[in-house]
Structures are given as C-alpha cells and as structure tokens.
C-alpha cells in the first residue's frame, strides 16, 4: 500500500518535472521567436541599439513568465520565491557591487544616447566602432581589428568622444614656416590649397590662425572641414598638397634651429682651424 503511494508520488513528481521542462523549452522557443519577430517588425523605425534592447526585453519578459509557470508547476509558491529573490538580491548586491554598478551604468548609458551601435567612439587611447552595448560592458572593434570590452562603469566615469555624431569634422593642422616668410603669402597659398581640394568643404570656411613665434618657426594652425566619411582621405590629401604647394612657392618648413650665445660680457668661443693633414698623420 505504502509502496504504491510512494510510486504514485514519484510518478506525479516525474510528470511535474516533465511539464516544467516542456514549459521551459517552450518558453525559450516562444521568447526567442517573439524577440526576433519584434526586431523584424520595428527594423525600419528603430535604431540598432533600440532594436537590441527591445529584443532583450521581449525575450526575458516572455521567458520570465514561462519560468514562473514552470516553478509553479513544480510546486513552488511564486510569492515566496519573489520574497526570497528580494533577500537574495540584497545579498548578491552586496557581494557583487562592481557587477551591479556596471548594470546600473549600462542603463544610464542607454538612456543618455551618447552613442549607439555602429558609432565610432574614443575612450582614453582606444578608438573603435561600437558593436554592442550590453548590461555589463560595451564592446568595441578597433580599426586594427581587435575586440575591446570596456566596463560600463568606467565609461560612465570617463570622457567618451563620439566621432560620428555630426556629419562634418574639422581637421586641425599645425604648421611651422621659416621666419623669413611672408605670413600673408603663406595664408594665400594655404587657402588656395584648400580651395583646390574638392574634399575640403567650402563652408565652414578654412581657418588660418597665427599661433605664435616658435623657437625655430612661425607657428600656424590651419583648419579645414570635411565630410565625416572623407576625413581620413582629406587628412592624407591636404598634407601632401600643402607640402607640394610650399615647395612650389619656395616656402621653407624649417628644422629646429639652435643658436649658441656666450653672452655679451663673455669672450667669443675660441675657434681653431685644425690641420687636416697633420690630424690624419696622427691617426696613423
């Protein structure tokens, strides 16, 4: 009699386990289908970042419901589980502060819209394309094809530059010309170079700033604007154009000069012309 009862109970439990497993399996399947479907339906209207977020919300929402149903099938009370989960969350929260911090930072990063998937950002010395903004970290692909993972917490704390936010960019070139050169002539040559280069925007107009009297050269900043996609091509093209134009116009780009001065009151350096023949014979 008791054996039969135990056998029935085992069978009941086994059936519950199977039902829960089926619920979980169906949950994964339906949640992943719903996630993909929601992505497909909103592809035209939402950015890749928002699409990924939507997919995750749909997936975890539906999967959560199926998980709760499976647990309920196994005889767990949802209210008790939620209560226990609350206590557990506090305990885990204390134990894994960094993870929690990254998680919260991730939410702020998404909410702030500083950058999105596909943007090119600069964090510290790392420049790369954003592959994904996940719960704990942001994944980048650098231009030398390396995969970089940056924790969300450090992104929130540090300076992030989004290079692809605006359609146009400015290229600042620092130049030096010899002291003998006429600044106005240099300015005209540089503006003619910018005018001839079709990648260089007509407006905003190129900027010519005389930045100061350097140690060996007159220092100049020449800034030109380009369409974001043409930035690198302009950077390479315009520097070569400037060198060629300076050479053609006879404008000197000086090397560092060093003048040795012994002071007004001191005697000049004694200069002795050595007898090369005598020195050569000494060498032997």
């Amino acid at each position, binding site marked *: 009699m008791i054996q039969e009862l135990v056998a029935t109970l085992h069978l009941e439990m086994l059936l519950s386990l199977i039902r829960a497993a089926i619920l979980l399996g169906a949950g994964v399947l339906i949640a992943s289908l719903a996630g993909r479907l929601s992505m497909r339906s909103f592809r035209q209207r939402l950015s890749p970042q928002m699409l990924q977020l939507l997919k995750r919300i749909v997936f975890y929402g539906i999967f959560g419901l199926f998980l709760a149903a499976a647990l309920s099938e196994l005889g767990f009370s949802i209210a008790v589980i939620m209560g226990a989960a609350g206590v557990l969350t506090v305990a885990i929260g204390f134990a894994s502060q960094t993870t929690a911090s990254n998680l919260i930072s991730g939410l702020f990063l998404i909410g702030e819209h500083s950058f999105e998937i596909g943007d090119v950002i600069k964090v510290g010395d790392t420049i790369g394309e954003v592959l994904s903004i996940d719960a704990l970290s942001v994944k980048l692909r650098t231009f030398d094809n390396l995969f970089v993972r940056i924790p969300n917490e450090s992104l929130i704390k540090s300076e992030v530059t989004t290079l692809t936010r*605006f359609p*146009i960019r400015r290229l600042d070139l620092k130049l030096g010309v010899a002291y003998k050169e006429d600044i106005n002539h240099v300015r005209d040559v540089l503006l003619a170079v910018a005018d001839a280069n*079709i*990648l260089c*925007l007509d*407006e905003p107009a190129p900027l010519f700033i005389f930045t100061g009297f350097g140690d060996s050269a007159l220092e100049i900043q020449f800034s030109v604007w380009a369409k974001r996609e043409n930035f690198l091509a302009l950077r390479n093209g315009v520097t070569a154009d400037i060198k060629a134009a300076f050479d053609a116009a006879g404008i000197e780009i000086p090397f560092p000069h060093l003048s040795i001065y012994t002071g007004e009151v001191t005697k000049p350096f004694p200069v002795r012309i050595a007898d090369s023949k005598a020195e050569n014979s000494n060498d032997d």
Partner: protein
Amino acid sequence: MTQHPQQQKKTLWWTPREVPAGHRLHGSLGALELSLGHDTDEWLLDCAPVGEDDIQPRASLKVEKGLPETIGERFVHAGKSDQVHLSAMLADRPVVIRPRQPVFLLSQQTVTLYLSTPIWLKIQVGEPAVLLKEFPAQPLSDTWFGPSTREGELCYAGRTHARHNPSELPRRPHRAITPLTILNKASTPLPLEKFSLPVPMLALYGDVDGMLWTQAVTLTREGQTDLASVQIDSRPPAYGKGLIRLAPPRQEPGRSGLVRAFSLLFGT
C-alpha cells in the same frame, strides 16, 4: 514639350547608339574625355577630366573602331545588345551658389539670374537598359549649408558669374542652366552672397542645340516676416527650342513650394 525630329536624334549626345563589339564610343563631353569600349563580353570605360581651357562648346562623341587605349574600369556582362544610352541627371544634393562678386538686390526689385550646375552622367547598356555607372561630369566640392555645424545639410559648392542676360551664357554641354528669379519684397537690400539651389527637385530638359535647361525657380523674400519661399515652375523652361524632358526630379517637390527661414535659403 515637343519631340525631336528624327534627323536631330543623331546629333544629340543623349540619343542611344549602337556600339558593336570591337568598337568604342569616344570623344569629349564638356569637362570630360570619355571612352567606352565594347569588348566581347565586357564594357571598358575610361574617363579623364579636361582642363578648363580645353572645354569644347559642343559634345563630340563618335563610334569608332578599336578599344580604349587605357582602361579605368571593366564591366562584365553576358548580354548580346550593342546599345549604349548616355543620359543626364541633375546633382543629388542641393548646390550652394556663390556669385564671384557680391551681388545685392535692392528693395522691391526682381532679377532673373542664369545659374549653371554640372550634370551627372548616367551610362546604361543593353536592352532593357542596365546601369553601368553614374558619376558627375565635373567633380564638385562639398560644402555645408546651415545656421551651425550641427544643423544644416551637406551640399555641393558652385561658383557663378550670376549672369542676368541669357545671350551671355557660355555653351557648355556638361552643365544645366536654371533660370532663377529673385523677388525682394523687404525694405532692405538683399545680399546675394550665397543661396541654396534645390537642384534635386528639378527636372532636366535638353534642346535641339544640345543645351540643358531646368525648370525656372522663383525665390521670394517676404516683406514683413523672416521667411523666404521657393517656387518651382511646373512648366518646362521658356528657353531653348524643341525641349525634351531628359530626367525627372530626384525628389518630388511639394505642391505649395517650400517656405523656409530666410537664413536657411540665403545663408545670412
């Protein structure tokens, strides 16, 4: 709009031609030296810019024996057709026009300026026509047009003599002329330092002499408000003989025309 007489079709560069295998379509089209060769199973294209002083007033494209001497690009095909169709389109972005010298339009005055912008050359081959390449007949510099570096749009930059007498217009087969009428209803002079010409919203027409025209555009600076309106004439231009529509607008203009802030159109 009238159709071309049959005999004139041969002379105009945009009429389709037969280029048999082993032959090439060679010659100049304004600022462009073009050579399109037909090899057994590929088209060979070579384009080179022509210096400002060497631009011919008429297009001179002929079918001749032989393939291009230098090859810039190769387009592989499996079609049997020998037909080549060169066609023209207007620029894909607005062109910001800057007169070479500042021009001012006095209060309550109207002026019609004739502005030319380079065309985009579209090469199609075969029957039905397949696109080979579309490119500007004269490369244009980019420019930004807007109140700040954050707001605005990318345009092409164009320089003009801002001629207001159509008889003074030079004949250039690679440029389309837009008659632009400007009305200044305000009480102050209107500086025409630069203005944005909505070229993608215009249709392109060709006349029997091979000159290209677009519809007329009217820019009105309103008197009291800080607004300006752009009106695109729905009729073909009133210039040139035997006009034929070569290309529709890339973007459809709205029926009521565009009303924008004055600063957005004139960049002041």
